């Protein structure tokens, strides 16, 4: 054989664009949900009733009167808009394009609006109260998620957010009660979270125990410890040890007077303002500073970081401790940030929702905050509608935050990529 084999295929021409599958998932989901909203909330909705939304509070500069809309007609219009969005997504899919984040976000807003219009038919609801409450409920989730991502960006999975929130809540309540100062409580919360964090770092970083197992065990440990201390120490001395002051609402001058935005964003407690600062600082630190570059390198490829002289173990220790303090601070919300007194297992799985918020937010502080707001909103919605006596059974509404979590993480996230080395101990010969 000297010539090119005749059985060989001709040299392949270069393909201009890569062959990708058309993904019909988004348009189908939008179509089904949109149609369901149109039929259930619109066509089958109660006719002849109005839905009233209150969008102004007494302290705003400008007073806007409550907005009333005819329930059925509005829901039908919203349903049609949603189907148009579904059609747009289908058109994008046909052209092998993704529908884009704004389409999903707009669709979500429309769907929720249409649901509200139907559920509140014949009644009145404060939109400002709903949004304000959503932000408040998002606070522990956002702090927890940021605590989680500070850990995971350095390569340590933090399942123990739940435990850090719980000990943070406990520490804040006790210290604030003893000192009669919410600010002392605010300092105590991260320190309490640090207790769980140092155990996490000790076992996962130093002794390289499986990170998931250590995290779960620490959660159980935190529940056991705080429950024991609660029933044996706090209960008998409730007046001195478990009656902390609550954080006052601080109005930011000028800004708090803006309609809707003002009361929602700038008429909150110090904890919420700390959240704004934390999101900003962590974002800049992770993505714009030397510290952040090194942390991310350790979380992605620890051996590579080691070969350029970065101390992998020390970086992980620092980040686990820092992350647990941030999560612990979020724990303060449960006691001094809302009800005051500590009660057993009061975090009720919020740490795991925070974990979901971290993943949904793709391990970025801003994303985590957005995801936390989504979960906070579903939680607040459940509370508001529970009071309003809507057609939906209350038990279903209680499921809502968790349902939203599952749908969001499973459906919206798709294939996200976290830090590559998260969960793997770094072993050096």
């Amino acid at each position, binding site marked *: *054989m*000297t*010539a*090119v*084999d005749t*059985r*060989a*295929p001709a*040299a*392949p021409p270069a*393909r201009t664009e*890569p*062959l*990708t*599958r058309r993904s019909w998932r988004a348009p189908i989901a939008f179509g089904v949900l949109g149609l369901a909203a149109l039929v259930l909330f619109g066509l089958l909705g109660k006719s002849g009733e109005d839905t009233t939304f209150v969008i102004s509070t007494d302290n705003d500069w400008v007073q806007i009167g409550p907005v009333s809309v005819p329930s059925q007609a509005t829901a039908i219009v919203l349903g049609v808009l949603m189907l148009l969005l579904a059609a747009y997504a289908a058109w994008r899919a046909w052209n092998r394009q993704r529908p884009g984040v704004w389409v999903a976000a707009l669709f979500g807003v429309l769907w929720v609006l249409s649901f509200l219009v139907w559920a509140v038919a014949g009644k009145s609801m404060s939109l400002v109260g709903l949004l304000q409450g959503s932000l408040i409920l998002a606070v522990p989730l956002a702090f927890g998620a940021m605590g989680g991502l500070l850990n995971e960006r350095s390569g340590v999975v933090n399942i123990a957010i739940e435990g850090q929130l719980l000990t943070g809540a406990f520490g804040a309540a006790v210290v604030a009660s003893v000192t009669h100062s919410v600010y002392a409580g605010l300092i105590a919360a991260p320190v309490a979270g640090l207790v769980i964090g140092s155990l996490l770092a000790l076992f996962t970083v130093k002794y390289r125990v499986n990170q998931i197992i250590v995290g779960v065990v620490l959660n159980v440990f935190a529940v056991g410890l705080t429950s024991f201390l609660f029933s044996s120490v706090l209960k008998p001395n409730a007046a001195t040890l478990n009656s902390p002051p609550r954080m006052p609402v601080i109005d930011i001058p000028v800004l708090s007077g803006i309609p809707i935005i003002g009361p929602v964003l700038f008429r909150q407690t110090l904890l919420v303002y700390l959240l704004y600062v934390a999101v900003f600082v962590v974002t800049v630190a992770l993505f*714009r*500073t*030397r*510290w952040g*570059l*090194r942390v*991310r*390198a350790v979380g*992605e*490829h620890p*051996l*590579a*970081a*080691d*070969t*350029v*002289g*970065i101390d992998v173990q020390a970086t992980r220790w620092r980040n686990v401790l820092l992350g647990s303090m941030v999560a612990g601070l979020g724990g303060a919300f449960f006691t001094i940030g809302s009800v005051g007194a500590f009660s057993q297992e009061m975090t009720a799985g919020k740490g795991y929702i925070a974990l979901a918020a971290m993943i949904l937010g793709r391990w970025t502080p801003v994303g985590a905050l957005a995801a936390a707001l989504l979960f906070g909103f579903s939680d607040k919605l459940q509370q508001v509608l529970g009071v309003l006596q809507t057609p939906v059974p209350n038990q279903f509404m209680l499921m809502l935050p968790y349902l939203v979590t599952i749908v969001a993480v499973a459906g919206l996230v798709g*294939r996200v*990529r976290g830090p*590559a080395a998260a969960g793997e101990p770094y072993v*050096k*010969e």
Partner: protein
Amino acid sequence: MKLELRGITKSFGPLVANDHIDLVIEPGEIHALLGENGAGKSTLMNVLFGLYDADSGEILLDDEPRTFSGPRDALGAGIGMVHQHFMLVPVFTVAENVMLGHESTKPGGVGMLDLDAARQRVRELADRFGFELDPDAVVEDLPVGVQQRVEIVKALARDAQVLILDEPTAVLTPQETDELIGIMRQLKEAGTSIVFITHKLREVRAVADRITVIRRGAVVGSASPEASETDLASMMVGRAVSLSLGKAPAVPGETTVQVRGLTVLDANGSAVVDDVSFELARGEILTLAGVQGNGQTELCEALLGLERPAAGSILLEGNELVGLSPKQVLDAGVGFVPEDRSVDGLVGDFSVAENLVLDLVHTKEFSRAGALDLAAIRKNADHRIQEYDIRTQSATQAAGRLSGGNQQKVVLARELSRPLKLFIASQPTRGVDVGSIEFLHRRIVAERDGGTPVLIVSTELDEVVELADRIAVMYRGRLVGIVPSDTPRDVLGLMMAGVPHDEATAQAAEHPTEAGHE
């Protein structure tokens, strides 16, 4: 800078990886460290780089003893290393990877990254050595050859005066290798000393000023680049080896394997095997050449039924294999040697005897009423161990404890121990010592001569040329062409970079490569 290693010893448990190694690297020389896989070259360099602590011995820089407790010390002393497995963060940009660990920051003292300075540094170094490098490209999107340049730039950005290159050509096409050799020469001109670790004789002779040969953790001698390849190979292995197989020409029989339009999509829906067609006759070896990661792995998985192709057909003696499970494919008469024997080829904790019957235990020969026929398995093991010269303490030893070459003999012995209609071997001699390579190659040729169609997938061009009756070259999931086995290496190298055969022939005639000469 003069670098000297004196009496370096490093053991991992009972295994002595480095045994009193002495080595002197003069300023501005390219010093090749030649040895087989597992001879201890990488261990030695990891000791030098501060990644491992030596049990004894000392490191001298310009005649001054130094101790490195970590890579930071080694880097600070002017030693840079390009690792065999790149130490790059895949999701970072080129500039971020280059600056990592010695970042320049903006004034103000809070440690804000100065990315512009890093970009500038990357451009400056790339310009000096005359290659293109986009500082803002994300590393995981770059071809391996370019990633390697990033590694080199990374070392140079820290003013490395001794540069260690650990098996740098393992992932490169011959043309990329040639470019690398050019860069190495330029570095040498600029006064940088280079330690070039490899087991490829051809490249050593092309570029090295001095050669030190390491065998079983000890220096066995030094050689000049004028030494013949056979002499170098003998030093490396410790006995005379014949480098050429000298196989008889193939006598192809009827065509029994027909692959038509085979397409495999990855999870994102892009084609990793793209419309691949070839035919294979009894008694011939078709080798599939290509740089790692061009779809060879997925093609093999599709042939075996591990991966469901999106389109195409695989006919074996007229029967369709697409849609069958791996077990059905194996039972149809396909023998398969996977590319990573320690993960897919063997169960490391199982004994040699058990591994020799892994996919045969359900046959009547080795089982009786659902229970293993231990006597038959034992007898089979004794027989195969002798036939394949498997060096093991006993048939009951755990297969994972054997050397790479002997592990591969176990896999090959198992797959060839039944009558086959098609034999597929992926990277049959990766990480195998030179002595065993010869043996494995002869067994594969013997299988061909027994009338089995054989498909060999290899990224080692030497092996491709050695075994092939015909060569298929794969690039980005497509077959660039199928060419005869006497095609010049330069042409194959260009085809491995996607250049069609005719064009590659013309180009190779114009610009012959150095390492490509026969």
